[in-house]
């Protein structure tokens, strides 16, 4: 039994232990603010775990989503709900106990059944020998994309990814439909939301210097997705986060003046439209849906390069949608739906 130093089990066990601690703490704490913050720590740890498993793209996504967006959304919501958990109340829901017993039995069975699973990190496991070698060996020659994850995500399984973009689009739409109010008489009682006092000179200065860097970095992540971890989703989240930062450093109105409500909506739909439109263009040119090879004639390049360009184009679509959706989710959730004032 030889253990490669690149997979340190001590490292894993420590992180997993910390993750379990964080999970338990997040559920046990009484203040929702504390819970949200501990959930953020949980997200850091899981990202570390994924980096260690060499899933850099996944870690990147988790870094963008878990570390920033989820926590901000939690905090935005926590403004509008009772932040304290009421304790010592009689429990009379017997059905919950029954469910719990069943869950524990399932847990024991499933833990027991792990004996049957191939051992962890075994290069000879079925998962690593059936499809994945084909992807690794062919992706570069078929799509000219060294990042195999990007190639699989945006080309081999681009149909999934299109619907991934549709999912975030749907989420923005649902949040809008659920939360946003057009009539002004239902406005939130303002005494629940004290105004911010004073000017935050330091913060604004920081924002002015950070935000452009952030946006350029987001574009780099988006466009460099072929060669390094990253891509449309991660780039989009970071770009969206720059607007959230703007809203946090100034206020919601300020950021919404830069990126107006209608523009957000158009971008939400426009990104998916770009994605699906490219697919439909391929379809119109006689290939199947999302067969980027069809673009070869238009772009005047080979099939393989056409696929590479196609991947880039759909990644841009994903980026636009995700960016707008993150901004939209923040705007809606942090302002309670009236788009007046955020966190």
């Amino acid at each position, binding site marked *: 039994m030889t*253990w490669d130093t*690149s997979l340190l089990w001590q490292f894993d*066990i420590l992180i*997993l232990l910390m*993750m379990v601690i964080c*999970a*338990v703490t997040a*559920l046990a704490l009484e203040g*929702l603010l504390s819970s949200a913050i501990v959930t953020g720590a949980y*997200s850091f740890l*899981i990202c570390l775990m994924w980096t260690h*498993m*060499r*899933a*850099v793209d*996944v870690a990147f996504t988790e870094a963008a*989503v878990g570390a920033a967006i*989820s926590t901000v*959304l939690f905090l935005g*919501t926590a403004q*509008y*709900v*009772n932040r304290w*958990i009421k304790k010592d*109340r009689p429990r009379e829901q017997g059905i*919950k106990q029954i469910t*719990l017993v069943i*869950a524990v039995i399932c*847990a024991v069975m499933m833990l027991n059944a*792990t*004996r049957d*699973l191939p051992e*962890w*990190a*075994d*290069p000879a496991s079925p*998962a690593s020998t059936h*499809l*994945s070698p084909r*992807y*690794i*060996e062919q*992706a*570069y020659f078929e799509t000219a994309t*060294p*990042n195999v*994850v990007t190639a*699989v995500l945006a080309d081999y399984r681009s149909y*999934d*990814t299109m619907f*991934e973009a549709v999912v*975030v689009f749907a*989420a923005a739409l*649902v*949040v809008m439909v659920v*939360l946003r109010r057009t009539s002004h008489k239902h406005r939130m009682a303002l005494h629940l939301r004290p105004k911010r006092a004073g000017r935050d000179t330091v913060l604004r200065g920081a924002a002015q210097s950070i935000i452009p860097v952030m946006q350029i970095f987001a574009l780099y992540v988006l466009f460099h997705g072929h060669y390094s*971890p990253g891509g449309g*989703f991660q780039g989009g989240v970071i770009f969206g986060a720059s607007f959230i930062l703007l809203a946090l450093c100034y206020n919601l109105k300020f950021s919404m003046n830069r990126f107006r409500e209608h523009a957000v909506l158009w971008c939400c739909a426009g990104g998916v439209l770009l994605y699906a439109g490219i697919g439909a263009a391929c379809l119109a040119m006689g290939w199947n849906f999302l067969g980027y090879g069809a673009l070869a004639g238009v772009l005047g390049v080979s099939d393989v390069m056409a696929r590479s360009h196609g991947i880039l184009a759909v990644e841009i679509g994903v980026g636009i949608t*995700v960016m707008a959706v993150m901004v939209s989710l923040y705007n809606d*959730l942090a302002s309670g739906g009236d788009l007046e004032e955020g966190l």
Partner: protein
Amino acid sequence: MDELFYFIIAKYNYWAALVLLFIGLFGMIVKNNLMKKIIGMVIFQTAILLFIVSIGVKRGATVPILQFSPDKQPLLDATAYANPLPHVLILTAIVVGVAVLGVALALLQKIQRVHGTIEEDEILEDMRK
């Protein structure tokens, strides 16, 4: 002893994922506060994602981004790269998770406004009225 150690080393990742999964499920089922339920949901989902990413790990493998030899030829040894497919699936699943989280939080705000509370038993009481 060595056997046992080997067994633990070979499987601990799956165990941790399953333990986290049931912690999350516990939160979703038993917690009375809806926000806690949502946090439980996040833990539950990430546990599943952790489990699936664990599938893609290979001993001695590097990130699934091709390396190039000095003469610009890709090094195509499948055992040298982690399995990319689970990463792709999980990327999608993370996005789905965020989407669900956003919707759940929006509903939570509405519940607070309609019922004046986010404690489950108080809501049920309020609904019975």
